[in-house]
């Protein structure tokens, strides 16, 4: 494990260095995301003037919900799949394939790097905003916070595995946009990033809960808001873990399958 970490850690480090080289872009990403965050905060503010509880969410719940989604989206970014798509389409993936490394682990560590760079900035923005906008105190039980931290970590891995699979699809499509935008839309809807899952019709919620996407946003938010507690929360974490393992193994075999059919462009 230590050996594994030592071998791949450089990918995270180099990615952080690269990101910090583009400080402007890093900041703009956060600013862009903040704009849409602020817009939805205003929207929900208006809605909560009419009624104090919507589908079981109070105003404060909703603000926290939006904050967590914002934080998660910044941490989880879309970098992975664009980079995989780019390296597949442009052919530079061969520079990774000639090295004694697993492509999947290499991508994971690269994603960890960009998450660290963007997450740090996003966490600062969210933290500050949340303190100003609502009474955070009632959400911050230490035991719950620990579960929340674990669920974010799991959410990160689930999101990575899904992005990795989407990125690999470019082996077959010779184009990244379609696959990646579709992946984003599906994730936004089924993970609860757009709206909490309880806002959807019951049948839809049921479908969403058997899909892996809910592990990305729904699970961490529910735990932080205290809507799932104790054994139920632990079960949700376990479900996340199952998804991580299933998707990782699937990604491993999908890569082997994809690479067999690869025709690397140029060079």
């Amino acid at each position: 494990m230590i050996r594994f970490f030592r071998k791949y850690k450089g990918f995270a480090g180099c990615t952080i260095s690269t990101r910090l080289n583009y400080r402007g872009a890093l900041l703009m990403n956060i600013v862009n995301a903040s704009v849409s965050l602020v817009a939805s905060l205003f929207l929900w503010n208006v809605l909560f003037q009419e009624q104090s509880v919507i589908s079981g969410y109070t105003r404060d719940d909703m603000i926290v919900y939006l904050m967590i989604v914002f934080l998660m989206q910044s941490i989880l970014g879309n970098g992975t799949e664009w980079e995989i798509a780019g390296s597949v389409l442009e052919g530079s993936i061969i520079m990774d394939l000639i090295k004694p490394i697993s492509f999947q682990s290499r991508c994971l560590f690269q994603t960890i790097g960009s998450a660290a760079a963007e997450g740090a900035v996003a966490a600062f923005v969210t933290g500050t905003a949340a303190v100003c906008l609502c009474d955070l105190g009632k959400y911050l039980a230490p035991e719950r916070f620990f579960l929340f931290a674990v669920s974010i970590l799991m959410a990160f891995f689930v999101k990575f595995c899904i992005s990795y699979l989407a990125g690999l699809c470019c082996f077959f499509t010779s184009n990244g946009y379609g696959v990646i935008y579709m992946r984003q839309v599906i994730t936004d809807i089924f993970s609860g990033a757009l709206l909490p899952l309880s806002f959807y019709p019951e049948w839809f919620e049921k479908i969403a809960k058997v899909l892996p996407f809910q592990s990305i946003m729904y699970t961490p938010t529910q735990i932080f808001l205290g809507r799932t507690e104790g054994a139920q929360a632990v079960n949700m974490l376990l479900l996340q873990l199952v998804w991580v393992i299933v998707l990782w193994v699937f990604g491993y075999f999908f890569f082997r399958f994809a690479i067999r059919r690869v025709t690397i462009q140029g060079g």
Partner: protein
Amino acid sequence: MPIIARDLTKVFKMPAHAPGIAGALKHVVHPQYTEKVAVDHVSFEIHDGESVAYIGPNGAGKSTTIKMLTGILHASGGEIEIQGVNPYKDRIANARNVGVVFGQRTQLWWDIPVEESFRLLKDIYEIPDARYKENMELFKEVFGLGEFITRTARRLSLGQRMRADLAASLLHDPKVLYLDEPTIGLDVTVKENMRELIRMMNRERGTTIILTSHDLQDIEDLCRRVIVIDQGRIISDVEREQLQSMFAHERGVRISLKKPGRDVYQKLLEHPELRLEMEDAHTITVMFDLHIHTAYEVISLVEELADIRDISVIEPDIKQVIEKIYRSELQVNS
């Protein structure tokens, strides 16, 4: 046995589009493919410490072969073994033994200092600290890395980038080094510098060199053995000198005359076995077959017709030989 390829074959499936929008639509509904044999039953053995040029015209199957040797591409048929490892089945084990330089690509990270890219490679290949230090010292000395190692790869000149890339590919002491167009786009002195470095690695570390290049000087300077591939098949696999002498029966003399030599040229046309060329009014190049004439005979022939001022003999070099193979003027049987 270090590198063995037996009946190596690669068949690509290419989408066959009919022309126009209708064709594109048709392809969506009912995709059709044509098969293209890129590499066709290629066999060779390469020993430790050899330096081999693997050459052929564009689209001959060179890069495809290299990609199969490096385990990137899956062979459609045949066997490969490199240092006892099947490169496709055991890509990672194979990657430890080989270094690759693709002249058109880089393994350096664009936005971070070169030094950090090297440290990443140290982690990836799990190079011990002492070995890493030793190699870095050597590369700083002979590759001149010291002058730009703290710069980001983005800011290197092409020559510096290629030197850094070559060093990067050698950092883990590979037994085999693949060079795919290692001097492409470099100017003459930098090319010479690159070649010297490659030669040194081959000589002093016994690194096996496999080179594909369109620069024939690379081949002449770096390789003792030349494998020529065309349309996926090996058409020649011999020592470089042998290749030269096999085709050396055509020689030439370049003769400068004291007076304009149009009439001499006309007279020489009576000998159809000679290939003639008027370079300018005073200079005639005469190409002849060694089996039919000697250089002395040709010169005597001209001397009878006019006064000669100067003579130079044209020896065939590898460039001409290979250019001829490419133009399919020569049939090779070996």
